[in-house]
């Protein structure tokens, strides 16, 4: 049995003085895609941010790709985590191509990778448009292009398929299948229990700061 991709034990997270998650356990095995649903404000994003090493646990422990999220090693695993938050994160004044090139530079990918990634997400013709002049869906696609530059070992999608056309949803589907096929893991978070029909191995429900198996 190989080590889990994500391992959260007795995890508790407070934001400011408000408890959001409490005594939560979650393990994502290699090759597993997990869906988590829950009501507005139930803590889905908080859970995902812990898995992205962007948030430290208040209590309990969190290990991602074998690394404790409070250790300095988290800086090294971050490029291997594909995190798509619920708001697009592109730099607004840069074009889609510049945004992707900047990511490529930090990830150590080449310029030819950038144009092929943008072509794969169907944005070649729009690549010289500034991010703040692009629609939500286009910005999302450009974020997916970054994931194609350096295929991640862990995918974290926060409502990633919301507001996307069918072609872009297929892209989400492809990214998910790809990471699972390579023995990585994925956590997909959304309001809907059906998760837009994504290929998931199991689905959980986040309620009262804790996880239960979805009905």
């Amino acid at each position, binding site marked *: 049995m190989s080590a889990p991709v994500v391992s959260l034990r007795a995890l*508790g997270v*407070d*934001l*400011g*003085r*408000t*408890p*959001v*998650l*409490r005594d939560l356990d979650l393990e994502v095995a290699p090759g597993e895609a997990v869906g988590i649903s*829950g*009501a*507005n*404000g*139930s*803590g889905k994003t908080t859970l995902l941010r812990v898995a992205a090493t962007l948030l*430290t646990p208040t209590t309990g422990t969190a290990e991602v790709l074998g690394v404790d999220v409070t250790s300095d090693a988290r800086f090294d695993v971050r490029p291997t985590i594909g995190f798509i938050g619920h708001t697009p994160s592109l730099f607004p004044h840069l074009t889609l191509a510049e945004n992707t090139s900047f990511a490529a530079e930090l990830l150590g990918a080449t310029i030819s990778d950038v144009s092929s990634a943008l072509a794969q997400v169907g944005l070649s013709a729009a690549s010289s448009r500034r991010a703040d002049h692009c629609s939500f869906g286009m910005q999302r696609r450009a974020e997916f292009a970054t994931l194609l530059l350096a295929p991640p070992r862990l995918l974290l999608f926060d409502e990633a398929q919301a507001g996307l056309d069918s072609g872009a949803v297929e892209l989400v589907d492809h990214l998910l299948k790809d990471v699972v096929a390579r023995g990585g893991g994925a956590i997909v978070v959304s309001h809907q229990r059906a998760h837009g029909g994504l290929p998931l191995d199991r689905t959980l429900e*986040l*309620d*009262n*700061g804790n996880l239960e198996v979805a009905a």
Partner: protein
Amino acid sequence: MTTRIRLLEIGAFAGIAAALSAALAVPPEATQGDLARMLFVHVPSIWLAYLSFTVTLVASAAYLKTKSLRWDRAAGASAEIGVVFTGAAILSGMIWGKPTWGVWWTWDARLVLTAVLFFVYLGYLALRRSTEDPTARARRSAIFGMLAVVQIPIVHFSVVWWRTLHQQASIARPGGLEMDPPFVAAFLAALVAFTVVYVALLVRRIELASTEDEIEAALRRSDLPVAGAAVVTPDLRSADV
């Protein structure tokens, strides 16, 4: 613990009472008269300003090393007391300065430095107020403390160099007073009394802060609802009424 704090506080009151009587009992100073009595407040305040700043810095460094919130509470408590006494030092200096120099403020290096210290303290406390999460607050304020440690000596030297270049007519300094034994004794009494007051305030403030933290920890252990519990399914029927 509580009894010891109580004893410390009684000691602080007794010390202040003793220092006050000593300060009023000494005969007026030869050149400055009664005005010299201001030094019994001014100099101990400056001493406490620097003492509490040092305690804050040491506690900040200890926090970064140990990550124990006890040190952060000490750092914050000492800074709060420090800002009060730095203010007191500046204010008493002004009250002494107006009749002595004819102005409330002069651009003496020591004055400028005390003012800088006051504002750095204020900024430090503002930074603490702006961060709600206890761990983030502790980390950020400790790091700002370290930044201040590096910068303040440079501020000190730059101000001193600047003043040496612009040496003005020498002014009467508190140090130029004739200090006879009763005056020195009253002065030492004030220094000791102020220090005891500082320790008493510090211990009490740290105790208060740790009680606050305990209450919070207790609330966390109990069934405080999670953030998500505040959101329920929308009920459109209730809007019809």
